């Protein structure tokens, strides 16, 4: 046993984790080496002193402060959107069952990736894109044609009527989405701070005004109905959906 060995083994020795044979050798070295004996004594003193330190007492009002912070956090939770709460529950599920949820998540990501790639090819990300692709050459224009999709617009008589019908259907899809999101927001909005609610209302009002102006412009456009002519209106609808979606997941409007 050398002094370097003592330095290497001193912590294990002092903690009683060293095997008996090496402990005996170390003790033998300590009998003839004063420097190493002092080193071991110092190590023991450090450990014993650290172990004898009294616990530190927290301030007497710390519980009150913690209780207040907990109350604050719970009130903030109550103001959060249902989507946020659902998301937190999903995250808890991931933490509890990382493997199955991870596999499901990976599968869902794969499905979304495929859908996005295929969706990108088909340009089907907006309600009215389906309409924009309608072509008189490929769409049957008579009610007797086979109806695979069950689309009521396939049963109308003329191409203009069909285009009009599909534009109205696209309008409905946008407006339904807006109505649904507006309903979700209405419940959350009650808990928003006044300034946040005012900002949100102003942004919604501006989009509503723009949509109203666009509808007035479309109302005086002479027939036949033009698909491309509704693009500005659909762009406004899409902006409103984006705004409502952000607000629904707790983002600031």
């Amino acid at each position: 046993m050398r002094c370097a060995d003592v330095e290497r083994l001193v912590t294990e020795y002092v903690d009683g984790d060293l095997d008996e044979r090496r402990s005996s050798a170390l003790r033998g070295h300590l009998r003839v080496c004063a420097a190493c004996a002092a080193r071991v004594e110092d190590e023991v003193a450090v450990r014993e002193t650290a172990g004898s330190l009294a616990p530190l007492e927290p301030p007497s009002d710390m519980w009150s402060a913690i209780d207040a912070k907990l109350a604050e956090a719970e009130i903030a939770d109550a103001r959060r959107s249902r989507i946020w709460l659902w998301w937190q529950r999903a995250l808890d599920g991931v933490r509890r069952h990382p493997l199955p949820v991870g596999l499901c998540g990976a599968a869902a990501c794969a499905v979304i990736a495929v859908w996005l790639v295929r969706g990108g090819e088909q340009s089907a990300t907006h309600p009215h894109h389906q309409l924009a692709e309608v072509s008189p050459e490929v769409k049957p224009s008579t009610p007797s044609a086979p109806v695979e999709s069950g689309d009521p617009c396939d049963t109308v008589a003329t191409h203009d009527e069909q285009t009009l019908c599909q534009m109205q259907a696209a309008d409905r899809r946008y407006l339904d989405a807006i109505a649904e999101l507006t309903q979700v927001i209405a419940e959350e909005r009650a808990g928003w701070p006044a300034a946040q609610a005012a900002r949100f209302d102003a942004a919604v009002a501006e989009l509503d005004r723009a949509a109203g102006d666009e509808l007035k412009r479309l109302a005086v456009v002479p027939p036949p109905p033009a698909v491309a002519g509704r693009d500005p209106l659909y762009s406004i609808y899409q902006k409103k959906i984006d705004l409502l979606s952000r607000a629904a997941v707790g983002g600031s409007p």
Partner: protein
Amino acid sequence: MDDDPVDIAASKKPSALAVVRPARRAPTAGDLADDAVLVEACRRGERRAMEALYHRYKRRVFGLVTRIVGPNESEEVAQEVFVRIFRGLGRFRGDSQLSTWIYRLAVNAALSHVTRRPRHEGDEEALAKLPAPEVSDSDPSLSQRLERALAHLPAGYRAVLVLHDIHGMNHEEVAEILGCQVGTSKSQLHKARAKMRELLGPALAAERAEQRGGGNR
């Protein structure tokens, strides 16, 4: 219902040849049952249970946090730890002991705080001024010096030394709390104690001299 972190065998004089391991009270079945009952009640939002849980762990959490982050910000960090504990109890699965889980939250919060804040001399000076508690130790001045010397250890060494030597945990528990290997805990403790011996050199020499003087009388 406060329980102290360590039940160290009373004031033995250090000796190189007769190393005595600190006696540490093992958790009893009653403790575990109480913890389980408390956790369930806390999950139901019962304030009295939450306060009882707080009182059970307040000294351990506050002491650990104070010795890692220093006294100036310890209260803020300790409060944050308890908020995380109560808000996270729903995710406590009981795979480990409640105390281990709480220690893990406390150490993580303290180390994150230390690594996040800008490093300047004031923090270390504040930690160095940590008042020595009223100890019944043979040499209060050595305790005080050790408290101050903690400030000069790297945060990782400090955490291991506090958990192992002050809170009386074994390396398996320290490794579980810190999320490291047992060997890493051992090696960090070895380095932490070596640094401590270096920092406390003159005080330890005086301690030795006093013991020899006392022994010779």
